[in-house]
């Protein structure tokens, strides 16, 4: 247990009679990225708030240790080890970006020169030098988020909580943020990341836990989770009914959709598998007019993992990549 950066057993929290976290276990080794994946209202933010000492866990929870310190008895030591970037930007909008950074340097009790140097370096690293003298309230969403992370890094925390760091960012800003997170981990930092995007967890996380209605319904690497998810497939569409019929008889394992003249082959969407499917189609003499790859998204994950409670068989909203 001591070699884990974050270790929680039976973490519980309810507000009034609303149960938010129903006894979740979390174990995050040092220097890895752990992602808590779930839809709005699943309890992700509550988990981050508890682990970052903002709210206390219910008394029925087991022991929770962050950075080797007990959350219940030594919150101040936990705070010294962590950095938090919340869902809503934790910057002071009334003062400039540079002043925000110097404020953090002062609160971490850095000597004046070192504080200035650290602030300047981080502003440079996050491409905020030009905007450093402007009030943070005038920043764009992506800039605010970068300033937010830069402020979190002033104290050189070994464990960083990122609560939906890319929600509301445009694609370019999102990819920048991913790059930043990867760089953090190369420096040996442990990252606890929450997201509602499977793609994001897939890109970044070493381990993913899927949170649903306050419970962890699945946990593993991205690969392990994807194996749990049905719904990834390649769809072949034909315009000529005759071509469709011959293809259907050649590809017996494909699911048929006679009305649309389409066939579906199970696939995880990987390049390797796609190539083997294409080779196989070639050797079977099948030539489709359109081929689309459907990869499972969060909807699929949830429908699959919570199928016992609510039962939509198939998501009608798969992400598509037309080739």
């Amino acid at each position, binding site marked *: 247990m001591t070699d884990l950066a974050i270790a929680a057993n039976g973490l519980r929290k309810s*507000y009034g009679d609303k149960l938010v976290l129903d006894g979740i276990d979390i174990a995050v080794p040092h220097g890895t990225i752990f992602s808590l994946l779930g839809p709005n209202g699943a309890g992700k933010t509550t988990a981050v708030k508890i682990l970052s*000492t903002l709210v206390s866990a219910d008394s029925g929870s087991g022991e929770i240790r962050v950075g080797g310190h007990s959350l219940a008895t030594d919150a101040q030591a936990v705070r010294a080890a962590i950095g938090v970037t*919340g869902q809503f930007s934790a*910057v002071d909008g009334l*003062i400039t970006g540079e002043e925000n950074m110097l404020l953090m340097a002062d609160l971490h009790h850095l000597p004046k020169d070192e504080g200035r140097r650290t602030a300047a370096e981080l502003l440079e690293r996050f491409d905020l030098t030009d905007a450093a003298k402007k009030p943070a309230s005038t920043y764009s969403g992506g800039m605010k988020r970068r300033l937010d992370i830069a402020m979190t890094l002033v104290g050189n925390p070994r464990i960083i909580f990122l609560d939906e760091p890319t929600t509301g960012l445009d694609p370019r800003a999102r990819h920048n943020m991913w790059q930043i997170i990867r760089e953090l981990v190369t420096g040996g930092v442990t990252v606890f990341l929450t997201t509602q995007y499977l793609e994001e967890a897939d890109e970044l996380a070493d381990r993913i836990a899927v949170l649903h209605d306050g419970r962890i319904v699945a946990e593993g690497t991205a690969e392990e989770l994807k194996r749990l998810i049905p719904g990834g497939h390649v769809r072949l569409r034909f315009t000529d009914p005759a071509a469709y019929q011959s293809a259907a008889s050649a590809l017996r394992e494909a699911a048929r959709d006679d009305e649309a003249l389409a066939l579906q082959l199970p696939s995880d969407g990987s390049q390797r598998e796609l190539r083997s499917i294409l080779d196989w189609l070639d050797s079977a003499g099948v030539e489709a007019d359109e081929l689309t790859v459907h990869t499972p998204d969060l909807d699929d994950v949830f429908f699959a993992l919570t199928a016992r409670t609510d039962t939509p068989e198939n998501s009608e909203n798969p992400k598509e990549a037309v080739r």
Partner: protein
Amino acid sequence: MSTISLAVRDSSTMLRRNLLHARRYPSMTLNLLLTPIMLLLLFVYIFGDTMSAGIGGGGPDRAKYIAYIVPGLLLMTVGSTTIGTAVSVAMDMTEGIIARFRTMAIHRPSVLIGHVVGSVLQCVLSVVLVGAVAVAIGFRSTDATVLEWLAAFGLLVLFSTALTWIAVGMGLGSPNPEAASNSAMPLILLPLLSSAFVPLHSMPGWFQPVAEYQPFTPAIETLRGLLLGTGIGHNGWLAVAWCVGLAVLGYFWSTAKFNADQK
């Protein structure tokens, strides 16, 4: 680092943050300053003759009435400034940066202490400005000794500290800045119900206890005595007791609210 030096260091960092806010956005402070200055001019130049005739029992004497109401208005300035404190604390608590402070290994009450010290400094500055206006329209306190002046200043700082801690509690207890401004209204209404504008004995009998048993009246009577040489009597100790009581109450109320779990 010891707890005390950590507290002092973090509090001074927070104070610098609050002073930066006040310097960048002075409109609120100036707005709140207008009320006591307008009341001063209104009571002296519009109502002054009638009021002084009523109080003195003799003919109208505007100069005497200026002397009478200035101590009350100086303390009313403090009340008005602390409304601003309640509002800015409530506004601050809606900011994400406060959540960040809570997750940092800093001296926790420093967030509030920064607000309090900043607000007390603003109170002193505001009182000096209102005092300057009073002197400009004829207020004089030439009989007071240096010691009395120092005591008056001390009372001012103590009174500001007490009201500010209460205002911080009001700000923390309010869900938004508008609500904070409402719940802090007593801080500017109480001086109107005190001996600031007319003496206690001139009020209806049933109302006199309301005016007497509240912090403004003893503080005003004490300040009046220090600046103008009128009798202070037991008001001095009463004023100090009120201030210390309110400051302690406000401190524990505020820190308890600040340390409570956030939703």
